[in-house]
């Protein structure tokens, strides 16, 4: 903390000063008259967070030397491929022109159309990827803000978070609350917690619901389905659907590439946390469900599949959520599973 502060503190201490507000030589920035008293009249804030380096006690890892050769190969190969495609298209159009002129022109038109579509697709994918990246950034920022308990960092990150949800009307109430909080003097860590509670809590509840639904469906269908192939397809479909729905819920709009990146992240997350899960809840779950599994192999299989789906769901929530879990622990597997096994009859009753 100390080295951080000294960087932007003036070296000499400044003398106390007073400015009477009717003094014409004094200019206060901002419009105090319009602001309620409880709010802050923060004016032209110095961007101290840019100067303040995060406290690092861990040596940075040296970056691996980037291999130029693979890049060169990629450029060369990609270029050749593009040329081949271009040549093919070109010769096709030439051939068409040789037969009839109008056929040639139609081909040209179609080519332009395809090209435009390609550009549009690129832009969309690029935007969705950058949005994913933005979410990752916000999460990291909020985490560091909470770790350093720095309110400047927290405020900046919360601004971004609110911008992320600006076009989501259902978050309006949470955003209004949060704007109120940022105008008070509240410490950084507390601000992040408040954001979690006021803005993200409804989304978290919905995300849990999504995961529960899918896990439940998977366990029911695998318990009933006659063929293993159907099981596999259903599990795959539901898992991909969870990732897509959860990411959309938290504000990402994954396109194809973005979706694969997300899926990869979720898988990576699973790999990281997998050991842990197997360590506690997995064993616990299977001992607990052992009886049910013994009663029926199919039922047991369904539960296992449901469990795996829930696991992916939890990983998806943790990957897609634009804030770390600080105030709450986040959804846990055992909690989801017990709810799945418990609420199955309720669900039936609800649907009646």
């Amino acid at each position, binding site marked *: 903390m100390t080295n951080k502060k000294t960087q932007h503190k003036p070296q000499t201490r400044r003398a106390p*000063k007073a400015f*009477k507000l009717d003094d014409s030589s*004094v200019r206060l920035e901002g419009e105090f008259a319009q602001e309620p008293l409880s709010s802050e*009249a923060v004016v032209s804030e110095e961007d101290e967070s840019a100067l303040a380096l995060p406290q690092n006690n861990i040596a940075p890892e040296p970056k691996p030397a980037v291999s130029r050769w693979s890049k060169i190969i990629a450029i060369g190969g990609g270029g050749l491929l593009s040329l081949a495609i271009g040549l093919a298209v070109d010769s096709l159009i030439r051939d068409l022109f040789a037969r009839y002129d109008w056929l040639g022109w139609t081909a040209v038109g179609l080519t332009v159309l395809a090209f435009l579509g390609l550009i549009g697709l690129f832009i969309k994918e690029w935007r969705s990827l950058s949005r994913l990246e933005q979410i990752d950034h916000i999460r990291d920022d909020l985490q560091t803000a909470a770790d350093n308990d720095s309110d400047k960092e927290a405020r900046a990150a919360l601004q971004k978070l609110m911008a992320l949800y600006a076009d989501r009307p259902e978050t309006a109430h949470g955003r209004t609350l949060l704007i109120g909080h940022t105008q008070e*003097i509240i*410490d950084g860590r507390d601000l992040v917690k408040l954001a979690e*509670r006021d803005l993200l809590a409804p989304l978290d509840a919905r995300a849990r619901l999504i995961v529960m639904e899918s896990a439940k469906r998977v366990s029911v269908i695998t318990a009933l389905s006659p063929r293993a192939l159907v099981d596999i397809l259903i599990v795959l479909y539901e898992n991909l659907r969870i990732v897509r729905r959860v990411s959309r819920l938290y504000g990402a709009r994954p396109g194809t590439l973005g979706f694969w990146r997300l899926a990869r992240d979720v898988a990576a997350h699973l790999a990281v946390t997998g050991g842990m899960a197997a360590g506690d809840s997995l064993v616990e779950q299977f001992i607990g469900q052992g009886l049910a599994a013994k009663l029926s192999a199919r039922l047991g299989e369904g539960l296992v599949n449901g469990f795996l789906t829930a696991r992916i769901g939890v990983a998806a929530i943790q990957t897609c959520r634009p804030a770390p879990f600080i105030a709450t622990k986040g959804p846990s597997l055992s909690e989801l599973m017990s709810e799945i096994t418990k609420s199955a009859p309720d669900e039936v009753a609800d649907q009646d």
Partner: protein
Amino acid sequence: MSPLNSLFKNARLALTDAQTALDNFAESAVDLTVPTVRLGVTGLARSGKTVFISALVHNLIAGGRLPLLDAAGTGRLARAYLQPQPDDDVPRFNYEQHVETLTKERLWPDSTHQISQLRLTIEYESATFLSRQLGGGKLHLDIVDYPGEWLLDLVLLRQDFRQFSKEALKRAKARPDLSAEFLSTLARHQDKLHEEFSEDVARDLANTFTTYLSRCRDDENALSMLPPGRFLMPGDMKGTPALTFAPLDLGSTQVKPKAGTLLAIMERRYEAYRKHVVRPFFKNHFAKLDRQIVLVDALTAINAGPAALDDLSQALTEIMGAFRPGKSSWLSSILSRKINRILFAATKADHLRREDHEHLEKLLQQLVQQAINRAEFSGASVETLALASVRSTRQATVHHDGVETPALLGTPMPAETIGDIQFDGEEEAAIFPGDLPEDLSDLFAEEQDRTEAEDQTALKYVRFRPPKLERTAEGLTLSLPHIRLDRAMEFLLGDKLA
């Protein structure tokens, strides 16, 4: 009217009586099951106890902005209202008047003259399933307010007259500019020590001693370590023999004074003071506490300079020493209930820029380090924070002659000065109080080697008037603004409202 009829009527009357009694009993039984939290608001004089209590109660009753108090932030707090207090022999905390003073007249409440009590009942919805079924969703919060000066008497519990005299004279001699009159009076009467007691001499000594103490307390000196407390804030004890004594220069003589001499009577009065004033106060009001908040006003001490700061630190250490758990402490024997959460709060954080809050917190930690260690050792959880029960300033930046200065915007109290400017208490001003130094030992040590240039940069915390409260379109007054009051409440009460 037949006898049967009247019998019937009587029986019915008896039944009604019985029913009323039963109802009353049931009511009080329900009342007994409502959990009660006794919050001890501890602090030296002018540390802001009364304002803290008023703001806490007002924010709960008026539904103020308390996002960090979990029950309020998540909307589980149904309502809070004042109820008759449990102890009938203690005056009620005059909440309504204090809030009126704060909001309408925009003045800080006068210093507290006597002890008072308040019971606030909070209705809430529990967040856990089990306590929703079992608990009544109610909590009584009992708060006690008392003059901060009295707290200093805690130190006297461990000192006899000889020790008290020695300590008091040592302190008096260290402040010759303030104690000259008292010391000369004492010297004049020195030879009467073993002569027959005369009320005139005793009164003379007590009066000059009191004058000396109150001079120490003035703003420009802001000293804290000034026992006995009732000399400064006598309450209803003014003029009683128990308050008409003074420390005497006993030298190193160990002879037991003869009965009837000045020395003997003074000693007896000191013992009477301890027995009839100090002990009952602490026994009645410090026992039974569940939670404790210790308010510390470091800013006034910083204003007055290193001596005052040193004195404050000493006073806090002495006071918190009296709360030491274990057999050696007399107090621990009556503290049957265990205080399991203690919050140390540096008050008046609104008089500082937000960047300096962290430093203020650090300064506070330094001041109460020993007390924190002790409390943590005994198993209580401890937290420190910078707090403003009522926030009277806003943060702003001033552009002046091309220089940007961070400042605080508020209405300074009348007759406050900074540099050459004097304030009239009506107009708003932007004030930059100076930078709180990075290295806090600067604050303690700079007395000797302070140059003139450094004198110019000495910190100056101007006192501000309470804020003007905005009204909504419907004419509702908004609740009092604050800094971290909700966090303090969450620490002190959060688990009881879970």
